[in-house]
């Protein structure tokens, strides 16, 4: 009996000590870790539009400098209207969007992707050209897929395959972009090839979850893509109003 009590007492003391240690470490380092995460997300946005290169390393200051110079974060309504942060009508649902601007021109827009994965959520960014249909870049910044299999989605070779793929077919209908099971050239009919990228062997499920997630996110932003496609919403950055209005509204 005495031995058991001693064991229980020792276990409780152990839990307290370890718990305190871990709490201290986690809270003390939390601020720095969060800064790293913000910086990493910004770096991935810049990567998606080719403003930084994967081969080089960048200091956090360089990243935030580039980010502030070229990227602006906006909100977009479900109808595809861009609203500046804080300008949305009360109760209006808006989704985040990042615009890559050079001078007065919107070069591309970056959609945050939140997809189901095999083991957990996959977080990514997809940059689309200002024609509203061509993919400019794709980066995954957080996932919990199996390393070596599904985990390959965060590698350069996989993400580069997305560049130049199209989310609309020749008739201009939305088809999204998907991950093929295996090589695109062998598995996908030629007319469909612009909408598929090579799959990862051993990661069929990750691929199909990510395809679904991409389709869902791209469909949500489809109204915005549509207005880019119709009139190239590209060169209407105004000094006073740092967001875009479309010619479309006037023509209607």
């Amino acid at each position, binding site marked *: 009996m005495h031995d058991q009590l001693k064991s229980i007492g020792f276990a409780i003391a152990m839990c307290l000590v370890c718990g305190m240690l871990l709490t201290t*470490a986690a809270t003390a*380092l939390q601020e720095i870790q969060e800064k*790293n995460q913000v910086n990493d997300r910004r770096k991935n946005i810049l990567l998606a539009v080719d403003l930084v290169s994967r081969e080089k390393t960048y200091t956090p200051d360089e990243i935030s400098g580039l980010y502030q110079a070229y990227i602006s974060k906006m909100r977009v309504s479900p109808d595809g209207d861009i609203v500046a942060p804080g300008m949305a009508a009360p109760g209006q649902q808006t989704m985040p969007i990042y615009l890559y601007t050079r001078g007065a021109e919107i070069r591309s827009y970056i959609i945050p992707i939140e997809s189901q994965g095999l083991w957990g959520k996959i977080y990514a960014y997809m940059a689309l050209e200002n024609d509203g249909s061509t993919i400019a870049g794709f980066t995954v910044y957080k996932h919990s897929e199996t390393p070596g299999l599904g*985990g390959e989605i965060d590698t350069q070779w996989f993400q580069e395959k997305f560049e130049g793929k199209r989310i609309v077919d020749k008739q201009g209908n939305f088809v999204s972009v998907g991950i093929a099971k295996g090589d695109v050239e062998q598995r996908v009919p030629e007319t469909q090839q612009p909408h598929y990228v090579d799959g990862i062997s051993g990661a069929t499920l990750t691929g199909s979850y990510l395809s679904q997630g991409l389709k869902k996110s791209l469909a949500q932003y489809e109204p915005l893509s549509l207005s880019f496609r119709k009139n190239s919403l590209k060169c209407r950055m105004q000094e006073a109003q740092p967001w875009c209005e479309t010619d479309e509204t006037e023509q209607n």
Partner: protein
Amino acid sequence: MKLSKTKAFKTFAGPAWTENPINMQMLGICSALAVTVQLKPAIVMALAMTFVVSFSNLIISAMRKIIPSNIRIIVELAVIASLVIVTDEFLRAYMYDVSKLLSVFVGLIITNCIILGRAEGFALSNPPHLAFIDGLGNGAGYGSVLIFVALIRELFGSGNIFGFSVVPQAFYDAGYEDMGIMLLAPAAFIIIGLMAWLQKYLTTRDEV
């Protein structure tokens, strides 16, 4: 007394060479395959592992007389897990890029059989200073294999060392190509196999 005859030296040199955890005992292979594509993550992993194994040995050895034997494995694991999580938190705060590369493998140090094996097999029956040195020796043994494998894989797989390209362009112009297999896990298997053979050959030759 010569340095090489002291008990402390033997405690260090044993696991670092003659009882090398990877080459001789075939432990910790999983992480050795996974994190050795490039040198930088391999070195960080080796340091993290050395830190965890030496301090877990030290702490467990210091408590060895008061740990109730019926819950000793749980206590050992609690110590190891706490150390690993602290390491992981530090990496995330100060070496975010490397910690993303190492992903789950930092957390998986907990399940690395070298650490629990040393805690059970050495720390519980030896005084703290020897246990600490034993941890350092195991870390050195594990780390040196990791770094060596990573050096070979990065050099032949991508022509780089520490991310700097070292294979001259003239080689590529003359038809040299990087070995794709070096970037895949099976390459580490082959290299570790060859290293184990070499080390067994060298150590048995000494004895004869």
